[in-house]
């Protein structure tokens, strides 16, 4: 083992450029992967945040009676899909309109806006079909003039999320495949560069396992280093984006460790496959 480690380190020393390149390519592959995962993670978080704001707004007729409204609020609040119902008076509505329409606030003197019931849904009940079902039930109250819930908007939200998820899985797998190919090729090159040495080792009686060990250790070390580098790059990219564009979230420690472990596994597996195949060619 001691010898194998020494051999592995010799491998680095003898081919510093090759080793650096391996580590860099592993890092770049995992970086691409990590960056995408991060994008996916943040899109999902953003979507969840946006989604949590999905609400149904029922505009009330001008002559709606306070008691009827209160009774309806009780009813609706009892639906299993509904998290919260809030009554917005016409005055509050105007206030809000002024606030939301910014630029025009001081030229917005007169005007009338109807009151409304703003209904917020529970987690897990925000998909387009459920939203529509609740909206339809709310519409049945006599004093409700109109119900709005941005059908198209909710639909669009969901389709973006689906596309993002699909793209994430496809691109993720593609990048993983590229990473494995690059690692395999890199290690095959290292094995080829040392094929003379391997054949001599075989000739003086070394077993396959003995010959493979340094390569596996080298692969492991490269994988871990590549993983760490990738993590660093991803973190850098993520914090740059956070700083200049939008706030993003980074992987937690568990995910980061998983990335490192992934690098190591890819390094070792890639080496094992390559070195095994190559060694068998030296009889």
């Amino acid at each position, binding site marked *: 083992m001691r*010898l194998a480690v020494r051999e592995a380190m010799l491998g680095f020393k*003898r081919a510093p450029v090759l080793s650096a390149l391996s580590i860099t390519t592993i890092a770049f592959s995992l970086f691409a992967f990590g960056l995408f995962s991060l994008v996916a993670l943040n899109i999902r978080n953003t979507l969840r945040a946006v989604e949590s704001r999905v609400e149904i707004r029922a505009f009330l007729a001008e002559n709606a009676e306070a008691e009827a409204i209160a009774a309806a609020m009780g009813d609706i609040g009892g639906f299993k899909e509904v998290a919260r119902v809030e009554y917005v008076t016409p005055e509050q509505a105007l206030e809000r309109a002024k606030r939301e329409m910014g630029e025009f606030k001081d030229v917005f003197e007169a005007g009338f806006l109807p009151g409304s019931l703003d209904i917020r849904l529970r987690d897990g009940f925000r998909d387009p079909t459920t939203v529509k079902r609740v909206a339809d039930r709310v519409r049945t109250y006599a004093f409700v003039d109109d119900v709005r819930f941005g059908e198209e908007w909710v639909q669009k939200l969901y389709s973006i999320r689906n596309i993002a998820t699909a793209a994430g899985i496809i691109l993720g797998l593609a990048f993983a495949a590229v990473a494995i190919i690059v690692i395999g090729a890199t290690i095959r090159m290292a094995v080829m560069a040392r094929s003379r*040495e391997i*054949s*001599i080792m075989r000739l003086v009686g*070394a*077993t*396959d396992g003995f010959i493979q060990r340094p390569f596996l250790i080298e692969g492991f070390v490269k994988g871990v280093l590549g993983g760490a580098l990738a993590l660093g790059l991803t973190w850098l990219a993520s914090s740059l984006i956070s700083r200049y564009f939008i706030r993003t979230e980074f992987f937690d420690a568990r995910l980061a460790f998983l990335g490192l472990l992934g690098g190591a596994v890819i390094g070792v597996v890639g080496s094992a496959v390559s070195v095994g195949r190559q060694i068998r060619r030296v*009889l």
Partner: protein
Amino acid sequence: MIRFANVFKEYPRTGVALNDVSFSVNKGEFVFLTGPSGAGKSSILKLIYFDELPSRGDVWVSGTRSKGVTRKEISLLRRKLGVVFQDFRLLEDRTVEQNVAFALDVIGTPPEKIHPKVSRLLTQVGLSSKSTNYPRELSGGEQQRVAIARALANDPFVLVADEPTGNLDDRATRGVFQLLRDINAAGTAVVMATHNIDLVKRANLRVLEINRGQVVFDSAEEKRRAPELTP
């Protein structure tokens, strides 16, 4: 110990190299392989250390049979053999010392035993002053002696040497030959391919003469067989 039984060896692109070769070597014997260039001497040696396997026929070395041999068995057999290659096969990026130590490392010799053994071996072949040099810094004959030291490192029970004196002057040749005789006297069988007819004549040891892939003379049988022509 070593037994060839009707061995044929055909290479993919050059055709038949060995044509029905049979002989055996006993424990502690010393055998010269002679014959012209391209006769098949190196091929026979490669079959002994299982670098090649016979196309037909069987080779037994120390109880290991060529038919159905596994990679693992080949490795284990080689640990008991010492091989001096015609082209030395030294590791270019290791010093003389490391090249010899390497053979000991591979078979799992305890680290503290390696250094003294390597020193002794290098002194034996007259190279202790070059132990920290790299192969490219050595003359041809010096490289050959490193190869011999490495072959002796694991106290082999058979030493296989392909032209071990090809790059040596007369005095060095006699030195190396004496070394091989000493090892042989200590019980190691030696199979040595050589072009040095003088050496062979003077030594009065067993000679196996190869020509066109056949054993045309075996001094142990004390008779010369007529060389059959290859088809």
